[in-house]
């Protein structure tokens, strides 16, 4: 079985479905037996959620107005 360090190193790629079949099985085997690494996995999911949520956000009205003005003035 792979070590905790090896499992943690692959967790984000595992969540991205970017690991090959052998690595996926190795990570899943490890997670089925290691509670701490399950915690690492859940934390990685939450951290990714935080990043995704932080990428959203409204464009301020005054910024939108200025950008639209520039757009109209082009050409």
């Amino acid at each position: 079985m792979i070590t905790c360090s090896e499992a943690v190193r692959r967790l984000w790629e595992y969540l991205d479905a970017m690991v090959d079949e052998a690595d996926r099985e190795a990570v899943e085997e490890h997670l089925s037996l290691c509670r701490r690494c399950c915690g690492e996995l859940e934390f990685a999911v939450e951290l990714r959620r935080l990043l995704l949520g932080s990428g959203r956000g409204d464009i301020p009205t005054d910024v939108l107005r200025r950008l639209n003005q520039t757009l109209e003035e082009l050409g």
Partner: protein
Amino acid sequence: MAGVQVTRADQREDFRRLVRAELPRLYAIARSLVGADAEDAVQDCMVKAFERLDQVRDPAAGAAWLRSILVNCCRDRGRARSRQPVPVDWGEAEDFSLYRKIAYEDPFPYSDSLHLDFLQGFGREDVHAVLLRLPEIYRVPLVLVYMHGFLTKETAAILQVPLGTVLARLHRGRKLFEKQMWDYAEENGLLKEDVR
């Protein structure tokens, strides 16, 4: 832009329609990449895209084309500002696990959801501030893939590097981001239970 027979006026109107629809997303990406310079970066992007209007062969790819120009405008602005990211200690960052650090340091001893409480201390502006501490080569792929949903191969094409390079930068970028989150939390009082 909208086919072979279109007039220049049609092409410009198609361009304006495309940019108007994309402005919120372009601004959000720029905000994540260059912080307070976002508006200027989007302005740069619009001007450059307009100058290159004749390069667009596939109207359906217009949004991706705009985003690609924007990312490069942001990188140019970042370089011009010569931001000095925090010095990187790779030995420390490579072995760093934010999950383990939080568990070991136990900053909120009365919490029964320690790790979630740590993350909830970070507002959008805090996340952006942490990202701006990272060297650009790690920040850009991290922002594009994990904040704005770009594919890794799309990111590789925009940055003009091999896919393997993007994957390696994402790995290191994540490690650095976790390390910087902890440092930022310490420096900005996010580890004090009484301020929550």
